[in-house]
């Protein structure tokens, strides 16, 4: 069970890295690039930590890493081609999925044996907080700076009111769930 969790988390951070790489490839010369770069650096740090953990615990990495390499980059680049709002919306959806995934892992570990897994729990909580921070930062970025007129019109500070966002979010969340399921096993 622990090995599965570590494997899927490693795959997740790897994919997140590639998503940001894709976004930077398209939007690297725009105003939004410092923000994306900063978030990318944090993900790189997460990935380094998981590489260490995998090596220490002799966990097998998922066989599909090359696939996540390409898929992540494609998702990042594709969403960035929709403009910086598209990139940010994609990141928001992905971060939400990842946070939910980390939360469920935290719940599982707490149910099993909180004392035994304190270190791992601490790590996952820290990473989850980082991902939530990205998520919140970008929501504000989108609603306040990119699409303020939506908020002014509808007085509803939810991203779901933006046309197309619900569809994108649904696709991304289903994709993330499938990726998590496969990476745990394969």
């Amino acid at each position: 069970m622990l090995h599965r969790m570590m494997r899927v988390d490693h795959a997740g951070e790897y994919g997140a890295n590639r998503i940001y790489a894709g976004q930077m490839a398209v939007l690297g010369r725009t105003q939004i690039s410092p923000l994306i770069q900063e978030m990318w650096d944090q993900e790189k740090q997460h990935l380094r930590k998981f590489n260490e953990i995998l090596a220490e615990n002799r966990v097998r990495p998922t066989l599909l890493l090359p696939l996540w390499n390409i898929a992540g980059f494609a998702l990042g680049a594709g969403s960035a081609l929709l403009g910086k709002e598209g990139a940010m919306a994609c990141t928001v959806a992905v971060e939400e999925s990842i946070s939910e995934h980390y939360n469920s892992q935290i719940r599982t570990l707490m149910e099993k044996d909180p004392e035994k897994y304190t270190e791992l729990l601490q790590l996952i909580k820290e990473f989850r907080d980082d991902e939530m921070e990205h998520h919140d930062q970008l929501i504000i970025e989108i609603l306040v700076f990119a699409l303020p007129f939506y908020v002014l019109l509808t007085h509803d500070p939810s991203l779901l009111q933006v046309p197309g966002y619900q569809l994108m979010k649904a696709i991304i969340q289903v994709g993330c769930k499938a990726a998590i399921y496969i990476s745990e096993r394969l």
Partner: protein
Amino acid sequence: LCCGYWDMAALIRGLRAGRVLRGLGSVAVQGTLSPQGSNVRRAFHRTILLQLVNDSKSDTSVPPPSYHEVHTAGESSSSSAHGESSEDAQPNTSFQDQSGEHGEDYETEEQLQARILTTALEFVPQHGWTVEAIAAGAETLGLSSASTGMFNNGAGDLVLHFVTQCNAQLAETLAEQNNKVQLGQAESKKTAEFLRDAVETRLRMLIPYIDTWPQAMSILLLPHSIPDSLKHLSTMVDDIWYYAGDRSTDVNWYTRRAALTGIYNTTELVMVQDSSPDFEETWAFLDNRIKDVVNMANTAKEVQATGESMVQGLMGAAITLKNITGMNQRR
């Protein structure tokens, strides 16, 4: 069949966990094996594994939960609940046998089986990898030859036991060497040399049984034994690479292990038909295969480096072009 011996509470719990079906299957097999002599009282030992009631999805290999009921004929009954150790073991769900006896100096069924199989190895040169060898081993220990009924896979169990023993020995040797290097008492070897020595060490363990080893290899390839034999092979290869210093977490993890598996298997095949003194030809073959793999790895690195520099050159040319045509402005 043997419903009377089953703990009904355990059965209900097992049903809730949904895994009793596997146990039923193996008990059905047990029940149909009839002892040969009427003076043989079949040993029944209740072994309830913690994984039955534990929802953990452990990656460590879990043998199928089986309701074996064994009380040894003429020996004191060992009836402790035996839990497979796993990182997810929860003590509060372990079952105690009805008779309440804990295993103090009593043997568990697994230990008894291991003892029989280890003794049976002495008879392999005589009987081959067969149930006869196991029977001879059992008789040497003072048990009836019908205790071969304990082994569902017969010869397969014997071969797998031997393989497990060899792998454990190898892991111990590698760990010791690693310790010495950590303490500075020994030099660390280069990867190629390390792999070569590890494979040679492991293959030398086959030398006492080399005449009958082709039979063992074919037994390991039977559909029944393939999952276990593959698992042992992959664990062994993983151990060797780990002690060789591999800490990769990408595709290299897979390519390295695949390469070493290929090297090991082909060298094993060469060994069983090698008649040179002290298997010199086998070790020479091993040397060459490892050289091949190292060469391939180096070539791959060179190709990658060349590719990267080519890409950089092309990017440079593209940027120059963009500059010339004035397309390279900041948005």
